[in-house]
C-alpha cells in the first residue's frame, strides 16, 4: 500500500499540499509544531494512491512518499 | 638570466605569468590597455585565457569567482575602473580571497585625464569600499620593481588570503626599461589543494566562500580575523628604501613610485651642489613602514621633511601621523597629470633651506 510521511517540523502550514492532493485526504492539524505552524497530516491513509503530487508541490520538502512492491505511475518525474 | 627591454604594462603581464597566473579578466582603459593587449596572445601560449569583461564591476566579480577556485588570478585597470571594482574588493577582502590588482593611476577626480597621477593613495590605502578592511598596497618605482612586486604580490595574497594592490602610474605602464624575469616560472598545473577552495563537495562537506554573516557575533569574528591579519602584515611585511640618507642629510624627502625616482634625480643634482638631501621611499604603502620612517626622521641631522606627490597631498597624512610633530613637514605636489620636474622640486628645497 502506498503512503506518505510528513515531517511536521519541516511543514510551514502553507496548505499547498492540501489543495494539490487529488484524493483530498490531506488536511491541517489543530496543533502547532515547534515553529508555530499548524502542520499538514494525512487524515485518510488508506486512500493514498502514492501519486507523489503532494510531495512534488511541497516547498519545504517535508513529505516522503513510500510504496510497496510494484506501483502504477501516473506520470514521469 | 636574459634581460629584456619591455614596456611596464607588458612586463606586468609577463610577471603574472611567471607567478603562475593563467586567468586574467579586464576591461580596457588608458593607460594600461597594453596589459590586455599583451596577455590576449601571451596567455594562450601557456594554456591560459583572457576574458574581456563588460565592465570593471564585472571584472572585480569575475575575480571573486576565479579566485574561489584556489588558482592565482589578477586584473589590471586604471583609476576610474578601480573605483568600479571597490564593490568586489570589499567582498573579496571579507571572503578572504587572494587576488592581485594593478592600478595604473591616472588623474582624477571623475574622468580626469590619462596622464600620470598618484591621487588614488587614499582609495588604495584607506579602503575604497565599505567595511573594515585593508589591502596590501605595493608601489614600484621601475619596470623591474613592478615585475618583482608582482611576484611578491601573489605570494603575499596567498600567504594572507587577502587582496593585494599594486599602484603605479602611466609612467610605469608606458615606459620601457630592461627587466629580468625569474628563470623558473611557477608551475600551476598541479596546485596544492587549498582547504578553502571550491573544488566540488566530493567526500567532504560543502565549502562556502562568502562575506555574509547575518549573526553579529559571527561578523565580528570575521572582522577580528581580518584585523589580526592586518596586524601581522604590519609586523612582518613592511618594505622601504633609503637613498643617500647620510649623517649630513638635512632634508628627508618622502615619496613613492615614479615620484621617488624623480626625487632621486633631484638628490643627485643637489649633491653636486653640495646639498645633502635623502629619500625615504615606502615600497609597501599598506602596511606603511612606520617605525622605519620614524627612526630616520628623529635623527639629529634631519631638520625638515619634504613630502612630494603627484596629488594635492595624500600620503602626507600618513607621514604626519607617523612623524607626530617631531619635525616640520613641507609638501610639494602637482596634479592633473603634471609630473613635478626635478627643477621645481630643487627650487622648493632651496626655498626651504633659506628659512
Amino acid at each position, binding site marked *: 500500500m502506498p503512503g506518505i510521511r510528513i515531517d511536521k517540523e519541516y511543514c510551514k502550514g502553507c496548505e499547498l499540499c492540501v489543495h494539490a492532493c487529488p484524493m483530498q485526504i490531506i488536511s491541517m492539524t489543530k496543533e502547532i509544531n515547534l515553529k508555530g505552524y499548524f502542520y499538514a497530516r494525512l487524515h485518510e491513509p488508506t486512500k493514498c494512491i502514492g501519486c507523489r503530487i503532494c510531495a512534488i508541490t511541497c516547498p519545504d520538502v517535508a513529505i516522503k512518499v513510500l510504496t510497496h512492491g510494484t506501483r502504477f505511475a501516473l506520470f514521469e518525474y | 638570466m636574459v*634581460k629584456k*627591454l619591455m614596456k611596464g604594462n607588458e612586463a606586468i603581464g609577463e610577471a603574472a605569468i611567471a607567478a603562475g597566473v593563467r586567468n586574467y579578466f579586464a576591461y580596457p582603459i588608458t*593607460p594600461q590597455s597594453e596589459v590586455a593587449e599583451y596577455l590576449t596572445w601571451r596567455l594562450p601560449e601557456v594554456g591560459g585565457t583572457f576574458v574581456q569583461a563588460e565592465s570593471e564591476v564585472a571584472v572585480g566579480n569575475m575575480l571573486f569567482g576565479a579566485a574561489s577556485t584556489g588558482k592565482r588570478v589578477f586584473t589590471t585597470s586604471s583609476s576610474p575602473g578601480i573605483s568600479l571594482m571597490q564593490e568586489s574588493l570589499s567582498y573579496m577582502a571579507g571572503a578572504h580571497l587572494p587576488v592581485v590588482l594593478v592600478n595604473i593611476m591616472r588623474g582624477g577626480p571623475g574622468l580626469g*585625464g*590619462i*596622464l600620470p597621477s598618484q591621487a588614488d593613495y587614499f582609495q588604495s590605502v584607506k579602503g575604497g569600499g565599505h567595511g573594515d578592511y585593508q589591502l596590501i598596497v605595493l608601489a614600484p618605482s621601475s619596470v623591474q620593481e613592478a615585475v618583482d612586486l608582482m611576484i611578491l604580490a601573489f605570494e603575499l595574497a596567498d600567504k594572507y588570503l587577502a587582496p593585494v594592490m599594486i599602484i603605479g602610474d*602611466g*609612467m610605469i605602464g*608606458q*615606459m*620601457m*626599461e*630592461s627587466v629580468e624575469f625569474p628563470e623558473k616560472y611557477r608551475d600551476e598545473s598541479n596546485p596544492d589543494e587549498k582547504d578553502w577552495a571550491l573544488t566540488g563537495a566530493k567526500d567532504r562537506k560543502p565549502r562556502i566562500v562568502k562575506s555574509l554573516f547575518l549573526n553579529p557575533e559571527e561578523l565580528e569574528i570575521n572582522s577580528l580575523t581580518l584585523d589580526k591579519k592586518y596586524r601581522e602584515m604590519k609586523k612582518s611585511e613592511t618594505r622601504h628604501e633609503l637613498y643617500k640618507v647620510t649623517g649630513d642629510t638635512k632634508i628627508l624627502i618622502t615619496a613613492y613610485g*615614479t615620484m621617488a*625616482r*624623480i*626625487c*632621486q*634625480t*633631484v*638628490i*643627485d643634482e643637489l649633491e653636486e651642489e653640495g646639498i645633502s638631501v635623502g629619500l625615504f621611499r615606502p615600497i609597501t604603502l599598506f602596511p606603511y613602514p612606520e617605525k622605519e620612517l620614524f627612526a630616520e626622521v628623529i635623527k639629529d641631522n634631519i631638520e625638515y621633511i619634504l613630502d612630494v606627490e603627484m596629488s594635492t597631498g595624500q600620503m602626507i597624512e600618513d607621514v604626519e601621523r607617523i612623524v607626530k610633530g617631531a619635525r616640520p613637514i613641507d609638501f610639494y605636489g602637482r596634479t592633473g597629470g603634471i*609630473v613635478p*620636474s*626635478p*627643477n621645481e622640486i630643487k627650487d622648493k628645497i632651496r626655498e626651504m633651506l633659506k628659512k
Partner: protein
Amino acid sequence: MDKQIEVVFAGFGGQGVMTAGQLLAYTAMEEGKQVVWIPSYGPEMRGGTANCTVVVSDDRIGSPIINNPMSACVFNRPSLDKFGSLLRKDGLLLINSSLIDVKSGRDDLTETLIPANDIALKLGNPKVANMVMLAAYVAATDIVSFDTLGGMLDKKMGKKKELLDINHRAFEEGRKLIETIKA
C-alpha cells in the same frame, strides 16, 4: 661617453620616431647600459605629433622625464619649435632638413642638418628616414657601436630581408653624412 645621455626623437605620427628610439634603447641595453624609453602619450598621440625620450646611463636612472634633454632629433617643424628651446646648453640638435627650413636660432647648441627624407627617398623608401637620423645621431655621439646597432636591427627586423637591407643602407648613409661633416 657622459655618465648619462638623454635624447628625444620627435616628429609626427608615422615618421618612425618611436621605433628609432626603441632601437637605440635595445642597442644600449645590449651593450650593458641602463636604459629607459618613454613615449609622450595621450590625446596628442592622435593629433599627429609624437615623441619619445631615451635615457642611457651607466648607473641607475632617476627621473625618466627629462625637462631639458641634452640632445634631440627633430623630424618636423613643430618638434623643432618645442625641443629647440628646451635643449640644455651645449646640447646637440639634429634637424631633418628635408622638412625643416630653419634652425633653432640658438648659438649655444651644436646643430647639424640631416636631409633624412631626401636620403631615404634616394634609397627607395621614404620610411627609412628615421634610420638615417638614428645612424647620424649614433655617429655624432658614439653612444653605441654600429656593430651592436646593426646586430640589433637584424634581431628586431630579421624576417623581412628586403626591408632589412634598405635599413642597413640607411644606417650607412646617416653615418657617412656625419663623417663627412666631421672631416
